[in-house]
């Protein structure tokens, strides 16, 4: 056990399992980013646990040389909550997708967020069901043609960050699979957050939904269709930073304005402002850019910490089973 403490590297976090995602899948980039980030997190590797549900993204734990549990569809948040309750020292990560996390597992997602269990949730959102071969998902845009919706899907998509905020999430960020630097910061901050760190990662599925995020990923298009928000910084975008986001206080709506000459109207990002976070999370094309970065954070008591405090309180006097069995009315037969 007394191994010399040496700094681990990406290699130490790479398992011996052959990665089996499709060539070109956004998951590869996410995996590499997380493997690279892990040694920076100041956590012993044996305490790191990746728990996933079902779907392409949920194969992730097999490729991490940490503890991992590939579970059942949609239930990873519940299993992770149980693991964290049993051992609060563990550094628990939930890996999920748009179908796993917001369709079959929607309920558990709401409750892990409202409880604020101290763990990280990485939601790989590719707006499609990959592993079951291309059906539309709860985040697919209306009209998505798929094997189960040949005439186009009819159900309105949900917005994962908005749902997370609605459920009471205390940390909500959005990032992009191939933007390693941006993703690293978002995930690291989610990890540092005391409570549930929720990160929606826009992820390309090259087989069933290729290019669905092209407008936010393509270098040229992204300038107009993506805005990176940073705490206490003005929210500006465009090729030359010529556009900005402003809050119309009468309509309680955001609007896109020209930066020049409007300096006092440009919205300053405040990641502790929930209403603003909701407005930013809701922005989508073509009228608005998609906001990426840390949208919201809030300091709040964590469920497992509170549980531990109750346990400490109840265990201040050690329970005697003999006494319990003899509590209340008893009688002696001779």
């Amino acid at each position: 056990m007394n191994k010399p403490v040496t700094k681990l590297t990406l290699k130490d976090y790479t398992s011996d399992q052959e990665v089996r995602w499709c060539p070109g899948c956004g998951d590869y980039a996410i995996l590499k980013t997380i493997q690279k980030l892990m040694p920076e997190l100041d956590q012993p590797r044996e305490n790191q646990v990746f728990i996933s549900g079902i779907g392409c993204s949920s194969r992730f734990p097999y490729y991490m040389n940490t503890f991992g549990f590939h579970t059942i569809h949609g239930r990873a948040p519940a299993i992770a909550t149980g693991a964290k309750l049993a051992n609060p020292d563990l550094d628990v990560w939930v890996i999920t997708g748009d179908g796993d996390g917001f369709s079959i597992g929607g309920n558990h997602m709401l409750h892990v967020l409202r409880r604020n269990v101290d763990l990280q949730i990485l939601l790989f959102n590719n707006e499609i069901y990959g592993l079951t071969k291309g059906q539309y998902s709860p985040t697919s845009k209306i009209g998505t043609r798929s094997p189960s919706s040949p005439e186009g899907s009819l159900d309105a998509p949900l917005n994962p960050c908005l749902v997370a905020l609605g459920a009471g999430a205390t940390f909500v960020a959005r990032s992009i699979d191939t933007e390693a630097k941006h993703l690293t910061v978002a995930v690291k901050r989610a990890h540092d957050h005391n409570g549930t760190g929720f990160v929606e990662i826009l992820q390309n599925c090259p087989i069933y939904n290729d290019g669905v995020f092209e407008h936010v990923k393509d270098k040229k298009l992204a300038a107009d269709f993506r805005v990176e928000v940073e705490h206490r910084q003005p929210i500006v975008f465009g090729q030359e930073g010529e556009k900005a986001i402003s809050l119309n206080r009468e309509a309680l709506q955001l609007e896109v304005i020209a930066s020049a000459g409007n300096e006092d109207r440009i919205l300053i990002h405040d990641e502790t402002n929930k209403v603003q976070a909701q407005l930013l999370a809701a922005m989508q094309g073509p009228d608005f850019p998609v906001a990426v970065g840390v949208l919201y954070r809030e300091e709040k008591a964590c469920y497992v910490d509170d549980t531990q405090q109750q346990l400490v309180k109840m265990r201040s006097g050690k329970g005697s089973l003999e006494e319990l069995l003899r509590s209340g009315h008893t009688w002696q037969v001779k």
Partner: protein
Amino acid sequence: MELAEENLDEHHLDDKQVLDVVVRFAGDSGDGMQLTGSNFTEATALYGNDLSTFPDFPAEIRAPVGATFGVSAFQIYFGADDVTTAGDALDVLVAMNPAALVTNLKNLVTGGLLIVDRGAFTAKNLAKAKYQSNPLEDDSLADYRVLDIDISAQVLAAVEPYNLGHKAALRCKNMWTLGLVMWLFDRDRNPTIASLGAKFAKAPEIAEANIAALNAGHAYGETAELPSGVHVYKIPKAKVAPGAYRNITGTTALAWGLIAASELAEIDLTFASYPITPASNLLHELSRRKQFRINTFQAEDEIAAVCAAMGASFAGSLGVTSSAGPGIALKAEGMALAAAAELPLVIVNTQRGGPSTGLPTKTEQSDFNMAMFGRHGDTPMPVIAAATPGDCFDVAIEAVRLATKYMTPVMLLSDGYLANAAEPWQIPDIASLPRFPVQFHCDPEGFRPSLRNPDTLARVWAKPGTPGLEHRIGGIERSYETGDISYDPDNHQRMTDLRRDKVQGIAKDIPAQEVCLGETTGKLAVVGWGSTFGAIHQAVKRARAEGHSVSHIHVRYLSPLPANLGELLANFDFVLVPEMNTGQFVRHLRAEYLIPAEGLNKVAGQPFKIGEILAAIHETLRQLEVSA
């Protein structure tokens, strides 16, 4: 086998020496009948009688006053001999209103004592119970000894000094009635007085009023003119093994069994559950017991509950989840993952009437098939069942032992009757119980998650937080050799066989099946499992007293079955299996052992009566005689 009933010889209130009595308190769900019953139980246990109780309450929390569907009842059978059921026919019925009378009268023996509150027999209440005329005023109760008292008026007079107000004063009716029944059976009122003092510590005037009502009811008995033949009964004390005793319900015994198991296994226990009748009380009881190695988690749904329990097991605690039928159905996928990932998990099923919402507050054994077979894939799982309230303690420990030793989910079957019924229980000596400390794997040398114990076939338990043991598990089929994902056909065959052999191997680790009453060979074996134990036991006892060749075999281990069970059953000409379902266990026994067996089946939301099983024994023996 057709369900029929034989009337047992219980018309004995006239006898000089009465050996056992069945009393049922029935009233509105707001009348406090459960409290009355539990206080009477306490007093009866302290008196030294053996006893068994059956709380029977409606699903509605506060049904409209006077409604037949709102009747709440508490039945107690107590006596000098070993009592294992709550009794068949009633010797004494307390009916606090017409609805309680109309729903319970059919169970009162001819000549039985009927105590009614005349004050509650108003035109309105009579109409709600669908009485055309007041039964207290016509001759419809002529077969019974009726003690009709205006209890309401008596109570109002008794508690007048406490200025409670009309409604609050009437709430003391149950204590007045309890006082009267305590007088009838010579019970000591002091424990009830003490518990009323404790219960209403913050409202001493309420406590005093209730005590005054209790004493007034008692005093009424001393001076009242009673129906002929009714007198104070002194039931002889039961002969029981020496030791310390207490009353216990199945739910409490199960909770305390889990606490004991955590100490014996030297492991923390994480209990994750979602509220459901009649299983919720287990969550309530354990939530108050976190000073032990217990943590509880009220999950967002049944699926989350089983999953959180499994997550806890993965992390090195023992996960336990609990529910009733519909909730267990929701947990099925989780159980299968625990079986595939080879993680320990205990699932408690407090069975109730089904299908669907069915009869939430009534008892049934109809989840046998689901417990045994209700999972996708070939997913074997040990299943054990509790026989009596006190047995829930032992079965809980056994479930934890099997789950941790064999790294497998284990289903523990209880039911609505066991959960709520109470019986005197000899308090076990914890120090004398065998310990079975859990061993976590810690050695990184040559570690693979697929390492297993060659004897038990159990996989190692390698918990997160252990340096050098980083590994992945999951629901995809894994290689027997490495524990990595494997789609290899031969490997799947091997792993399926392994899962089967592991569970089957438990048969070597459980006691051989014994006959709990009678010989190991003979004409008829009455075979039961679960809470039918008490009624079968009494019926077989009576049949044997009549000179019949009948034995009682009670099966605790349903999967795997004890290794010698088939051989044992083959020693009998015929097997009769009473079950509170349509014949699930009997079908399994026939399939396993190809033996002649017939079921006696009842799904009326009520436990078997002794007379029903006795009638079936007689009929089976008669048929055997005819065919011989």
